[in-house]
Each structure stands twice: as C-alpha cells, then as structure tokens.
C-alpha cells in the first residue's frame, strides 16, 4: 500500500514510549495584544471562522427575505404594490447570487474551513494567518459592496444571477447604470479575498498536518473542504475574467460579449462579440461551483453520520476517491447548463456522457452513507437528523439531475420550474441542512455549550418537511411547462387554475419555513449563555478538534504539545476497545491490535 506520509509514526496502536520530537521547529504564532487584534483584526482562524460565519448568515437573511418577496409575487400577484417587474428581477438576481456565492461558498470554506482545518489537522493555526485575516476583510468589503447595490441609483442589477449579456448591460434591464457594475466589482473582490483564504487552506492541509496524520487518515470533512478549495481556485478565475470583460463592455465600450444588435430601434455601438463566450466562462466557474458547495457538505455529513451512528464511515477510501473524482469530473461537465443555449449541438453528446458518469461516484457516496447506518448504533441527535434529512433531499435532487443532465430530456425541462426545483433541492436545501447539522454538531466546541435540543428538533422538522413540500411539487409545474423567471404567469392557455393554488401553497410553506429559521437564530443566541455545559467532547467523537485541552480551544489550540495521531478518524465501536470510540490521538489500549487487523488496509 502506498504510504502518503510525511514522516513520523504512522502505524497505529504500536507507538510505545514517547513520540519523537518534530523535525522542524514550530513557527511562532502571532500573539494578539489588544481586544482589537484579538477579536476584530484577528489572525486566529477560529475567530476568522466566526466572522465569516456571522457575515454569511447576515447576508443570508437578506436572501431569505428576498425569497419571501418573490414568493409573495408568484402566489399573490399585485398584492404587494412595491413589487413591480423591475424589483422582482432584482430580487431573484440578488437572492441567487447571495445564496450561491456569498452565503454557501463563504460559509463552507471561510466558515467551516477556517474553524475545522487547523483543529482537525492538529495545527495551531493556518499557515498564513495575516493573509487569512485579509481574506475575511476583503470578503466583508465584497458583501458590503453587494449590499450597496440596493442603494445606488437604479438599484441592483436584475439580469438574473447568471448575468447573461447582452441583456445584463442593456438599458432596459434594471440596475443597468450602477447595479451591474457594483455586482461585477463585488464578485471580483470576493474572488480576490477567496483566493487568499483558499491558498491558505490548501497549504495548511498539505503542510500543516500534525505528526501521524497522513492524507488517508484525514476526516472526510477535510477532504471535502480541501478538494472544494482546489476546485474554487481553478474555477473562480474564469468568473473573474468574465467579470472584467463584461465591465469593459459596460464601461469602456468594448465588445467582448456584444455582437451587432438593435436596441429600441437603433443600431447599438457594438459588434463582433460573442454572448455565448460569457456563458462558457460563467458555467466553467458555475458548474464546479455546485460541487464547491456540495463537496464540503459531503465531507461534513460523512463525519456527522459516522459519529452519531457510532460506526466507521463505510468505504472510506472509496469516499475519498469519489470526492477527488467528482472534483476532477466537474470541470468537464459545464456545458450541460447550455444544452439549449445554441452552442454546437454536437457538444451535447460529450457533456451528457460526462454528466451522467459523475452520477456514479455520487451515487456511491450515497450508498456508503446509508451503509454506514447499517448495523450501526444510531443516536437520533439533532445533527444526525439534519444529516438524514440531507441524504433524502440530496437523493431527490441528485436524481432529478439525471433528467436535466441527459441532453434531450433537458430540452423540454430547461428554463422551467423543474430546474428551479432541482437546483434548490440539490444545492440549496441539501447543503443548508448540512450547515445546520454542522452548527448543532460543532457549536459545543465553538462556545462550550450545547444548543437546545427541543428547539433544534422543531427547527429540523419544520425545515426538512417544509422544504420538501416547497420543492417536490414544484417539479411538476415544470413538467407542465411553466417557465422560470416569470414575474407573472398571467392567462396562459396550458396552465390550469390549480397551478395558482399550488403556488399559494408553496408560498405559505416558504413563509413558515423562513420564519422557523428565527427559532434557530434565537437558539444560537440563547444557548450562548443558557445552553447546557458541553464539556470537551460531548458527542464522544474521535477527531482531533474534540481532543483540545480547552473548550473553546484557546489561542494556539493545543497547549504545550501538538497531538500525535495514531489512527484514522473513524475508530468507532472497535471490537475489544473499552469505549465505543478511540480518538485519533489515542495510542490505544493494548488491544493486540484487534481493531487494527480488521482495519487493515484502511488506516
């Protein structure tokens, strides 16, 4: 078996005597001297993680309110007089962009990445703490610039989150004067900030692991975040150049994406550009982006299921290769978003094939999660409930992806509500359920206190069932042919009156599900003071973040000595062990290696 270690003891259970010293001395940490350098301009990854998390949740609330407003319009057209077509398109655009980029990407990578990478790897901090701090502040600037879009003349852009030119920069699209410029500038800032953080995560995973923690012993959470970060570093530049080129088209009169066109009866001063080039650049970023959100969720949910089912994750190596394989394949499937875009239709054969091939590693991950439950010792904790909810919504959303990925099936369904239902189920609801599960799971480590279980269960049931009721029936509107991005349907021959009833039902459910999130926010705030004391390892978990000498972990994480790792992250219910879990830094009781022999080849 190939040994991917960087030296140090790696054979589990056999470490007798003191561990040898680190070959290289530890770099000195930056030590904050004031409240400001400790909590505001902090270089501690844990504080930066919380800053990222809170900022992402705050902007996420804006997106939530926007979704309420657009649902109100769809169910009760004209009821809220301030929602005209301009505003509606501005709301859907901002909702989409916020959710995909500023919330999901930032929360998984900037939030969970920052908190968990150093702790799960036994590191004291990220490799480049100063850059890490800059990353957050540039992200905050990007968010503020995005919000500024609401206050500039003409409001934010209403071009749809895909920002397709020529429409995005033409005069009769809302937000054409300022909004689109602000949006593109904010995206560029986001990408710059993310690159600083992203390089940090990659280097820390490759160089910052503690002794004994080989790559193939890392928790799947880290594998997911690591792979997603590598992908983001490769995918975001495509969006960046797309944004630069569109800014030039808008501000300097270039024609990268602008062919000769006629606007309000006049020949516009453009010519020779290609609108579809932007679509390629956008989706070359946009499809990996789906997995940039999904892979950290895959990783985290694997760890939640394993911990709360008290059982090792089934098929660890397959899970790792599936993550890496999905990450690689996701760069050759982007044009499945463009089957009906007017690109050369011959491309359809290639992209349909690659897209459906990706279903295989993805399905294997689902099987392995379910097989982890098989013969487990399943505790229905709140994180576990959210993980189970994720599996259901992800299977559902993943399977409808097989419709849309299969080129000819996509033809009638593309640009209908079926697409809206599909991507909300698979990359909206599913990853957000993981985020909730992860917060319920790690909140005790972050704060030292447990979140309230009763509130958590109410939150879970309302969110999971509500979201399913919103998005499952929506697919059928798409089958009927109801298009997406319609401010109002009006009288349309093929749409029966019952579709309006369904829209009312979806809207009311959405309002309730949205309101339920306030319960979650209340729980977060209330438990900070009043939650039950958690202790260091309330879930009896194996991974390193639960083995810190202090909870919440102090600056530098590990006290005098960094931990040494002796085993993989999944030694739950090892036969012969006195407890049903063996922490990664536990040299192990003298088991006569019973667990190790079973785990042979897994490490």
């Amino acid at each position, binding site marked *: 078996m190939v040994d991917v270690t960087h030296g140090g003891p790696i054979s589990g259970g056999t470490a007798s005597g003191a561990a040898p010293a680190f070959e290289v001395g530890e770099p000195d940490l930056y030590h904050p001297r004031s409240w400001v350098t400790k909590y505001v301009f902090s270089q501690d990854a844990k504080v930066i993680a919380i800053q990222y998390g809170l900022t992402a949740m705050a902007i996420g609330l804006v997106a939530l309110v926007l979704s309420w407003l657009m649902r109100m319009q769809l169910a009760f057209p004209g009821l809220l007089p301030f929602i005209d077509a301009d505003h509606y398109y501005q709301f859907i655009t901002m909702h989409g962009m916020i959710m995909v980029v500023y919330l999901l990407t930032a929360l998984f990578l900037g939030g969970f990445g920052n908190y968990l990478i150093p702790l799960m790897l036994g590191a004291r901090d990220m490799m480049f703490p100063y850059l890490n701090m800059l990353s957050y502040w540039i992200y905050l600037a990007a968010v503020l610039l995005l919000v500024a879009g609401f206050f500039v003349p003409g409001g934010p852009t209403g071009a749809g989150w895909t920002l397709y030119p020529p429409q995005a920069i033409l005069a009769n699209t809302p937000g054409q004067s300022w909004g689109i410029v602000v949006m593109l500038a904010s995206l560029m800032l986001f990408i710059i900030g993310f690159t600083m953080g992203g390089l940090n995560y990659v280097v820390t995973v490759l160089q910052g692991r503690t002794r004994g923690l080989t790559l193939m012993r890392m928790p799947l959470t880290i594998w997911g975040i690591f792979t997603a970060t590598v992908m983001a570093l490769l995918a975001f530049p495509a969006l960046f150049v797309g944004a630069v080129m569109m800014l030039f088209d808008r501000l300097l009169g270039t024609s990268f994406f602008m062919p000769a066109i006629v606007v309000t009866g006049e020949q516009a001063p453009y010519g020779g*550009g290609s609108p579809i080039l932007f679509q390629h650049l956008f989706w070359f970023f946009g499809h990996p982006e789906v997995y940039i959100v999904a892979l950290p969720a895959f990783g985290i949910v694997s760890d939640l299921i394993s911990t709360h089912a008290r059982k090792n994750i089934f098929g660890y190596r397959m899970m790792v290769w599936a993550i890496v394989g999905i990450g690689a394949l996701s760069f050759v499937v982007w044009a499945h978003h463009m089957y009906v875009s*007017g690109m050369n239709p011959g491309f359809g054969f290639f992209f349909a094939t690659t897209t459906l091939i990706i279903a*295989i590693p993805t399905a294997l991950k689902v099987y392995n999660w*379910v097989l982890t439950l098989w013969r487990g*010792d399943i505790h229905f904790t709140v994180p576990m409930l959210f993980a189970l909810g994720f599996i259901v919504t992800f299977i559902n959303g993943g399977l409808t992806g097989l419709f849309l990925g299969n080129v000819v099936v996509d033809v009638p369904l593309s*640009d209908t509500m079926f697409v809206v239902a599909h991507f909300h189920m698979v990359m909206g609801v599913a990853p957000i359920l993981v985020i909730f599960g992860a917060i319920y799971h790690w909140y005790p480590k972050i704060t030292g206190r447990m979140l309230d279980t009763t509130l958590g269960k109410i939150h879970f049931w309302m969110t999971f069932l509500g979201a399913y009721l919103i998005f499952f029936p929506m697919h059928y509107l798409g089958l009927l*042919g109801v298009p997406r991005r319609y401010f109002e349907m009006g009288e349309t021959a093929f749409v029966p009156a019952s579709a309006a009833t369904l829209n009312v039902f979806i809207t009311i459910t959405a309002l309730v599900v949205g309101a339920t999130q306030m319960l979650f926010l209340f729980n977060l705030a209330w438990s900070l003071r009043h939650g039950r004391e958690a202790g260091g390892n309330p879930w009896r978990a194996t991974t390193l973040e639960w083995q810190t000498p202090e909870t919440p972990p102090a600056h530098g994480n590990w006290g005098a000595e960094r931990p040494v790792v002796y085993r993989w992250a999944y030694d739950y*219910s090892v036969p012969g062990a006195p407890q049903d879990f063996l922490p990664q830094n536990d040299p192990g009781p003298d088991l006569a290696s019973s667990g190790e022999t079973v785990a042979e080849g897994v490490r």
Partner: protein
Amino acid sequence: MPIAIVLGLVVVGSVLFHFLSPWWFTPIASNWGYIDDTINITFWITGAVFAAVVLFMAYCLLRFRHKPGRRAAYEPENRRLESWLAIGTAVGVAAMLAPGLVVWAHFIRVPAGATSVEVVGQQWQWAYRLPGKDGRLGAADTREVNDTNPLGIDPNDPNGRDDVIVQGGELHLPVGKPVALLLRSLDVVHDFFVPEFRAKMDMIPGSVTYYWLTPTRTGSFEVLCAELCGVGHPYMRGTVVVEAEADYQAWLAQQQTFEQMQAPAQTGALN
C-alpha cells in the same frame, strides 16, 4: 424513531403525488414523443432508486436505533459490495443515457425535406419569415435593420425579395410536414418555446440557431420566451397555429412579402 416512519411516508407521499398530480405534460403536438418516452424511462429508474434507497435507510433507522447496550459493527469496507453497487449504478445510468443520446442525434439532424421558417426575437415580440415562391430565405444581418427592413434582410440578395414577413402576428404551420425553425435574435438572448412541441432552443444575437419538428395535430398553441430577456420577458408571447395544408396556403397567400413591404417606402422616396 419517528424519522424512520416519516421517511417511509415521504416515499409513499412522493409516489402518490406523482400519480395523482394534476400537473403533467401538456398533450403533445409534435413528433417529439420520443422525448416524453425518455423522460418516462428516467422517471421509472430514478423513482425506483429513490424509493429503494430511502426505504432501506428508513429500515436501518428502525432496526439499528440506539438501545442500551447496543454496539455498532466494525466494518471499514466491503470491496465486493462496493463494486457491485458501482456496476449496478453504471448499468442504470447507461439505460437512461443511451436512449437519450439516440433521441438527441435524431433531434439535431434536420430531415432533408424540412421547410425552413425563420423566427426572429426582439424585446419583447416575435417575428417570422417564411420563404416565398423560390422556397429559399434570403441572407439577413442585424446591421441591415432599419425602419423599413425590421428583420435586417439583405436588400441585395434576390432570394430575399419574395420572403414572407409576419410581424406581431401568428405563425401558421402545416400539419404533418417537418419544419426547421431557424432562430435569430436582434438584441438579447431569447428562447422560442412551445410546451406542446416539447422542443426549445435559445436564439443568440449574431448567430442562427435551430431546431426542427413535425407538428402532429392541428390547433392553436401558445409561444413563450424561455430565456430571461429583460423586464418584458413574461409578456413575450405569441401563437402558433397548426392547420391543414390548404388552410396554411390560404393564410400564406395573404401575408406580405419583403418586396411589398419596401414598396411604399420607395414610392415615398420617389415623390
């Protein structure tokens, strides 16, 4: 424990909803019943997988829920099981992909006898151009667009003189005859979508895209724009009337040609 029951109910509810839902495909009016068939195959395969995996999961939750003294099994991996699952999934995927690609090959190859009809999108209306007596459409370019030449037909191309132009009206098509829709946009990206035809394709300014179909039943069908094209997007509607050949010819004879359209302007210039 309750979650096991709820997950079972989610499966039962989803399947019932699928069969009882009043929302389903519109009655098809083109030859693309193949697409419906492919969707139905996909529904059967994915539905079976969804039900099987979620029900199995519900069973696990019920059977292996925590009880005092219970301890999980220790089984890191099972190569054989994982391989079989991978193979089974690959077979299922191939069963959906193969018919899909065959139908796609059919979809993108316009049959030799198809008549060409041009659809032109412009914020936020549809215009159509049909070949005149010569059976050919003249060349066109957005740069040629002006008040008297709204579709930008090349005035120097003799093939374009007798082209029939329909602006802001209905498009009529003869039933049972294959037609290739050549799609052109003068400003932003639009998409010519008739749900009953199942087919759609974006129209991109600066290029000509296409799809083809054979209308299979007469009737009047609503056209929608299916690609966000600005605030007027939901109002960009139109009507396609599929009728018998004789009715179609009668309609066609009443439409004005490019030449007729130009005539009043030329007279004006002479005065």
